[in-house]
């Protein structure tokens, strides 16, 4: 059981997390945040294994992982 949360207002849409996710569950949103980027998000929380690869790659401390 794992939960990953994204502080959308910090995201710069770099997609490093999306590439790093071994389950491929990270996608970039349709909407844009206040900085003008499409923030990363996870729809299928249940698929998250809490590996934190996404958080490790994120340069902007957007991601918080719980397990």
């Amino acid at each position, binding site marked *: *059981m*794992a*939960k990953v949360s994204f502080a959308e207002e*910090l995201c*710069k*849409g*770099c*997609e*490093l997390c999306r*590439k*790093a996710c071994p389950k491929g569950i990270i996608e970039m949103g349709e909407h844009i945040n206040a900085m003008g*980027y499409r923030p990363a998000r996870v729809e299928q929380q249940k698929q998250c294994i*809490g*590996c*934190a*690869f996404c*958080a*490790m*790659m*994120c*340069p*902007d*401390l957007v*991601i*918080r*992982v*719980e*397990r």
Partner: protein
Amino acid sequence: MQVVFERPKSLTDMKFSYCPGCHHGIIHRLVAETIDDLGLQEKTIAVASVGCSVFSFNYFDTDAIQAAHGRAPAVATGIKRARPENIVFTYQGDGDLAAIGTAEIVHAAARGENITVIFVNNAIYGMTGGQMAPTTLVGQESTTTPGGRRPLAAGYPVRVCELLNTLEGPSYLARVSVHDPKHVKEAKNAIKEAFRAQAEGRGFALVEVLSACPTNWKMDPLESLDWITEKMIPEYPLGVFKK
């Protein structure tokens, strides 16, 4: 459920001003995590340099000083000699460390100053808009090497770890990368070792971190990861040179 990943204590709340996909953010975080893990936040004094990371004194939640271009190792020497009980680290880019600061880094290393240096190598000058750095690869495009760096006009890249490895002074020299989670883990181990070296009084420690600069490489963040693996690592081999 337990939190397994969150913002380290040794980073302030300030939002990073770096470009999307710039690896400075990852490297700052690894340094802060290391400071947290080793319990050094209240003892650490950070020396910021001049480059994209000029405001790093705002991001690290430790005492900090902003040093002149290239001179951070000398400033760090002054601080550490006056207060050997503190942990002193510099955070420098390739212009700061390998161009204007060459004398200062070589001599701090030669003296075996008990400081830690985090050297971010992105093969270009970021802050000033993408000019050639001493670490720019032959054939690499930059605003001052239009058409690509030509050795006859602009010489060859400088390999800092190999250079410093000719000296007795350093106790730990490593080159790492942060282009995927495996390498991020290895980078953190190296950075931790470099701070441990200081805490244990073993002498000068430097970690060179290969880093992306998507904006000035004129690539998107994911393309820049490939440029690191395909172009930079062959030129700047990863590994521990001295320990």
